[in-house]
């Protein structure tokens, strides 16, 4: 931060003590000033909805003073397609299709949230094997999600290479997901009562092969970006969310854990078979973009660890409980949540005894991360704002719903 200002002193703009820009607050990098005597205006820049670093259709109105963000305002609704309303006309076993398209990169987690809610209402006992399959698929999907985030994080910082490496690994992951569920993205695999089909034969070998390769690849991924000095300089101290702020904004998932709050639904409120799994929850210290990066990288390693446990100890048994063809949960209200790749995905179902929910609320973690961005961006450079958007890992399908 001092380099740029030193340059200015040497060229003489500040040499005679005409103007002292003051010491910027710790952790905030300012664009070099020194021309405040000139009449300047704030510039309002419209960022998005078509913008390569807004990760979808995020639109931000950014008020700029030079390159420094003075004010940022998020505009939502460019992908609002009424998932909650449409759910009121879907059968209970078809809710998963909508959830797939909500957070479209981590579909299994969304499906699981709906399935858990319906199971709680109908008091269905899910077979142990089905619960293990769900955990394995969710962790495979978590790696796929984080890999996509890792690739775009590289793109946001101006590195194209990591994206290609990430997509290479993601493709081999999608092959496994496709062999199990039949689809690359919209799985519709987890249903109330279990999963829709048993694991195909000899998939274990494929998954083990992937895990073996991935455990070395993930270190490589980490080294490519986190070992890069430019990348470090761009992420260190950017977008600091302390624990208090994170809790106040209702952040969950890696964004919250990067701030040092030990909250992981897989540990705190274990669903499926997570109480039988051994894994660590990585935590950050300062809550800056670098911490959010490191937490996600470590989560990938932990996911790989869980997948290994799943294929080692996959129990025998049925893959689904006996459920009626048309699900008719009793009238009531239930909230079920899962730890998705981005945080807590919660489903609040209100039923009236019919074949479709009376009301479904979809709680997605990205919306809350997005609200925090508005408070984070002022004071930083616009390019740092892109880093913040990238490190918060926002999924617009989940924000607008």
């Amino acid at each position, binding site marked *: 931060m001092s380099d740029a200002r030193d340059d200015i002193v040497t060229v003489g703009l500040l040499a005679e003590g005409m103007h002292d820009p003051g010491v910027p607050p710790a952790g905030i990098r300012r664009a070099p000033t020194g021309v405040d005597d000139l009449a300047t205006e704030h510039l309002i820049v419209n960022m998005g*909805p*078509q913008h*390569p670093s807004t990760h*979808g*259709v995020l639109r931000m109105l950014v008020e700029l003073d030079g390159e420094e963000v003075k004010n940022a305002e998020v505009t939502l*609704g*460019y*992908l*609002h*397609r*009424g*998932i909650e*309303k*449409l759910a009121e*006309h879907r059968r209970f076993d078809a809710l998963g*299709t*909508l959830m797939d*398209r909500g957070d*479209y*990169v981590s579909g299994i987690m969304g499906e699981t949230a709906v399935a858990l809610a319906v199971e709680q209402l109908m008091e269905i006992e899910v077979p142990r094997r089905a619960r293990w399959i769900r955990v394995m698929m969710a962790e495979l999907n978590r790696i796929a999600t984080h890999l*996509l985030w890792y*690739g775009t994080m590289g793109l946001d910082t101006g590195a194209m290479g990591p*994206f*290609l490496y990430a*997509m*290479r690994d*993601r*493709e081999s992951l*999608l092959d496994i997901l496709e062999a199990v569920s039949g689809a*690359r*993205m*919209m799985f519709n695999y987890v249903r109330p009562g279990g999963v829709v089909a048993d694991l195909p034969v000899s998939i274990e070998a494929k998954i083990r092969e992937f895990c073996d390769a991935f455990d070395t690849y993930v270190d490589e991924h980490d080294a490519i970006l986190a070992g890069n000095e430019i990348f470090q300089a761009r992420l260190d101290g950017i977008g600091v969310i302390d624990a208090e702020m994170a809790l106040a904004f209702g952040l969950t998932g890696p964004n919250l854990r990067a701030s040092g709050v030990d909250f992981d639904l897989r540990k705190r409120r274990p669903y499926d078979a997570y109480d039988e799994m051994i894994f660590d929850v990585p935590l950050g210290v300062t809550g800056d973009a670098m911490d959010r990066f490191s937490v996600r990288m470590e989560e990938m390693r932990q996911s790989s660890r869980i997948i290994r446990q799943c294929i080692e100890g996959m129990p025998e048994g049925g893959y689904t409980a006996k459920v009626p063809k048309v699900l008719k949960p009793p009238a009531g209200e239930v909230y079920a949540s899962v730890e998705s790749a981005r945080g807590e995905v919660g489903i609040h179902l209100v039923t009236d005894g019919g074949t479709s929910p009376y009301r479904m609320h979809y709680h997605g973690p990205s919306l809350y991360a997005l609200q925090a961005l508005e408070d984070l961006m002022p004071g930083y450079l616009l390019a740092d704002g892109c880093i913040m958007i990238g490190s918060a890992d926002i999924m*617009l*399908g989940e924000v607008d719903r």
Partner: protein
Amino acid sequence: MALDRLTGENSLLFIRSEQLFDLARTNSLWYISFGIACCAIEGLMSASGPRFDFDRSGVFFRNSPRQADVMIVAGTVNVKMADTVRRLYEQMPEPRWVVAMGACASTGGPFREYPNVVMGVDKVIPVDVYIPGCPPRPESVQYAFIELRKKIRAKTEERLAARRERD
């Protein structure tokens, strides 16, 4: 057009200018990187990834509509987004083509019952190729580009045939 057979020493190529432009256009169909929803992951990101590697057939993303030839509408277009899609389309230089990727962009897809969702992007901008699927695989997008190439070439050939007839 087998160019490799024509490129020797002292070789000459007689070609109509329209066909020459078509040759260039069909082999460098740059698309605007404008992912709306789920399809963007398959049609724009996996597509530029190492396995499918659209780059090898000259299909590459540009971040500005002014440098793009093709717009892949990858996702659900709702009423709020429709204006933006239209504006981006109008910012693209002619000739320009549109690929409606997936069920949502073609007809509204699984969300068509919702009043906020536009029932197919062809209500907003003209579409050249539709790709079915939810989401279509990257191979389908590749196929769509092959079809688009045929369509681009066919237009010139039609025009030439009409001119021959007139003369």
